[in-house]
C-alpha cells in the first residue's frame, strides 16, 4: 500500500504549531509507517508536490498577499486541508493588528520602537503586501478540518490525523482536545 502524502506550511505563525506536530514524539514513527511528509518548512522540499497530496496542513494567519498565495497553492494541491492553531483558525495573535490597523502596527514595529534609530518599514516584492485585516485561513480558501489551540496539543493533532487515516470524517474533536489558547 502506498503511503498517504502530507504537506505542511506556515503563514503568519510562530512555528509553535509545527513544534506541537513534532511533539507527537515516538508516535510519529508509527505514523510514518503509513504517511509520508513531502514538503514542509522543516524539510528540503518547500512546495507541495504538483501531483498533489492527500492532506495539507497550514499553520498561521493570513496577513499578507504572500500568505494568500501559499494558502491557495496548498488548497489546490491537497484533498483535505487542515488549519492548525488559533492563527490559522481565527487569526490568532497576528489578528491583534486588526485592533490598531496595519499601518499603525507597522509604524510602531519598525519606526517607533524605542531602540530604533531612523527606522523604515520594509517593502519588497518578495515579502508580499500587508493586508488591511488579518484573518484565519478559511477566509481565503476552503478549510476541511480545524484544530484550534495556541498551540493545539500534540494529542489533538495526533487524534485528528489518526481519524483521517482511519477514513473517519468529519473530524470532531472531543472537548478535551479543544482549546482556544
Amino acid at each position, binding site marked *: 500500500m502506498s503511503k498517504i502524502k502530507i504537506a505542511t506550511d506556515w503563514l503568519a505563525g510562530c512555528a509553535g504549531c509545527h513544534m506541537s506536530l513534532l511533539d507527537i514524539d515516538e508516535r510519529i514513527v508509527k505514523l510514518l509507517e503509513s504517511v509520508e511528509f513531502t514538503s514542509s518548512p522543516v524539510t528540503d522540499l518547500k512546495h507541495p508536490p504538483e501531483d498533489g497530496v492527500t492532506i495539507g496542513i497550514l499553520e498561521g494567519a493570513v496577513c499578507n498577499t504572500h500568505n494568500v498565495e501559499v494558502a491557495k497553492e496548498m488548497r489546490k494541491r491537497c484533498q483535505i486541508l487542515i488549519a492548525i492553531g488559533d492563527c490559522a483558525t481565527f487569526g490568532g495573535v497576528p*489578528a491583534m493588528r486588526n485592533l490598531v490597523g496595519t499601518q499603525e502596527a507597522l509604524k510602531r514595529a519598525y519606526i517607533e520602537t524605542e531602540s530604533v534609530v531612523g527606522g523604515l518599514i520594509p517593502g519588497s516584492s518578495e515579502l508580499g503586501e500587508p493586508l488591511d485585516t488579518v484573518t484565519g485561513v478559511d477566509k481565503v480558501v476552503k478549510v476541511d478540518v480545524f484544530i484550534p489551540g495556541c498551540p493545539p496539543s500534540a494529542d489533538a493533532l495526533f487524534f485528528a490525523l489518526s481519524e483521517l487515516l482511519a477514513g473517519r470524517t468529519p473530524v470532531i474533536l472531543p472537548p478535551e482536545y479543544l482549546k482556544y489558547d
Partner: protein
Amino acid sequence: MSQVIVTIDNIEVKVRPGTTILAAAKEAGIDIPTLCNHRALSPTGACRVCVVEVEGQRTLQAACVFPVAEGMKIKTDSDRVVKARKLVLDMIFAERNHFCPFCEASGDCELQNLGYRYGIDHWAYETYLKPYPIDATRQFFLMDHNRCILCGRCIRACDELVGNHTLGLRQRGTRSMVGADTDTPFGESTCISCGTCLQVCPTGAIFDGRSSYMGREVQTEHIKSTCSQCSIGCGIEIATRGGNVLRVKGDWDAEVNKGLLCKKGRFEKLHDGRKRVEVPLLRQGGGLQAVSWDQALKATAERVKESDAEGVGVLTSSNATNEALYMLSALTREMKVTNIGLLNGVSPGLSGIRRGALADIAKGDVILAVGADPVRNQPVASFLIKRAVDKGARLIVVDDADNDLSCLATMKFGVPDVGRAVDVAARAENTVVIYGERVPSSAVGTLETLRQRAVFIALEPGVNTQAAVAFGLKNGFKSSAVKTLFVLFGEEQWDGMDVKLGEIGEDAFVTVVSSYISPLTDRADVVLPMAIWSERSGTLTNVEGRVQKVRAAVYPEGEAKPDWEIISLLAGMLGKKFDESPDKISDRAIEALKGGGIHRE
C-alpha cells in the same frame, strides 16, 4: 404546598409550581448550560443558550425563565436543542473579537467553556474584524467591549444588587453597547467602582487591571475570609498565587453581603502603596534600629514595669481581631491601666432597643438614617438601603453634616429636628433605624421612643468597634498624663485620628504596633511590625454582633506578626501568660461578647 411532576430527559421530578425549567433540571441533576443567567440576578432569557424542547410548544424555550407545569415533558439535550445552542454560540462568537490567546478571561471564561462543550472549532460566520473600544478610565478595572457578549449581567448587577443604576445598553442590534450613564466614560460616570459588574461578567469584557494575566482560577488558591475595611464584615474570597494576593472577590455564600463588596474591600487595600514595617525597631542613639522581637518587646515591657499605672496610656485601632482586643483588655486590667482610648469614635449606646440585622433593611418601609453616612463609610450597607428605596421604602435622613444618602431621601432633617423625623417613622409599619457616631446625646432619648416599633442598626465607625467597646477599650483617653504610651495602630491611616497625638509629651516612651511606616512610627521608641488583613487569622465582630472568621491567606511581610500574637508576647514579658491556644482565646472573647449582649448566633 402542592407540587407538580415534570419529566426532564426521562427523569421525573417533583417541584413547586412556578419553578423554572432550569431549577427543576438542577433538582433532577441535569446541567443545562447558561450564559446570561446568574445565581444572584433575576433571569432574563437574553442569551438563549439554555433553550430546551418543551413538548407541545412550537418553539424552543429558554429554561431560565420558562416555568414548569404539571405533566410537562422537557428535552434538554435533543439534536434540535444542541443545534440551536451551537447556532447561538456561533453567533455570539461572530459578534465581537474573541481572540482567546490574549484575553484575560481565557481559561475561566464561561463562553469559552461552552464553545468547548459544544465543539465549536472555528467561526461559522463572518466576523466583523473591527476593533471595539476599551475603556480604561477607571482606576482599578477595565472594560473591553471586544469581549462583551451583551448578556446584561453587569447591568442587572448594578441595578439589582448595588442599586446604583449606572449601566445600560445603548443602540440596538449589532451596535448595542454596554455603557455608563448612557454614554459616559466609566471613570467620569456615576460608577462607584464597587466591582460587582466585574465579579458577575462571564467573559473577559470586564477585568481587574492589577491581577490580569497573573493566574486563572485553577492556578490560584482561594481562601474565604472576612473583609476588615469597615464594620459590616463582608464575606470575601482571597485569591492568591505563589504567596501573593492577586484579587479579592465577594463571597456569594456569605450571609452578610451575599457576594457584594465595595471599592475599599475589593480594590483599595490591594493598591495600598504605603511602606511596610518589616522588622521590630528600637530607638538607639537617636535613630530607630532594627532589633530582634525579643529586644523590642523587652524594651517596652521594662518601660511599662518601671511606670506607675497612671502614667501608662493605651490606644487602639478598632481594626484588630476580637482575640487581640480581648487580650489587650485583659492585660490592661491586670496592669491596672485605665487610660485607654480607641482611635475612632463610636455611636452612642441606645438602651432597650431591638438590634436588627443588615437583612432587615430590605424589610423596612421607612428607613431612618441618623448621623450615619454609609455611602462613604460602610458602602455595602448603603447598597442595601438603595435597594430598599428602589423597592419603595422611604428614606429619612437626619444629619447636620453633608450626607451622601441625602439624594435618595424622601425627607431630610437637621439633628435638632430629629423629633419630627421620629414622628414620621413612628407611623410606618416596619421602621429600620440606622444610626452612627453623629447622633448627639441629646437625640438619644428621642430615638429610643421608637424602641417598640423599630429595629436598630448601629453603623459603627471603624472596624471591630463593638468588640473594642464591649471589652472596655474606650475609656476616655487623656494624652497629657501619659508617660508610657502603647498604640495598637495596625493598618490605620495617619490622618483624621480621633486622638491628638501631638499632645503626648516629648519625653513619653511610645511603643507602636504598626503595619506601615508613618509619622507615628517615626516618633516611636519601639515599633513592632504587624501583619495586615490578608496575613492574620482570628475573628471580627460586625455591626450585627456576628462573629466572623478572618483567615490568613499569605504569610506576613518580613517579621510581622498578627495582632493577637504581639499582645500575647508582650503579656508574656509582663508576666501575664495567656496559656490557651488562639482558639481558646477566641472562645473566651466570644463569651465576653455574649456577656456584653453583643454576640448574635
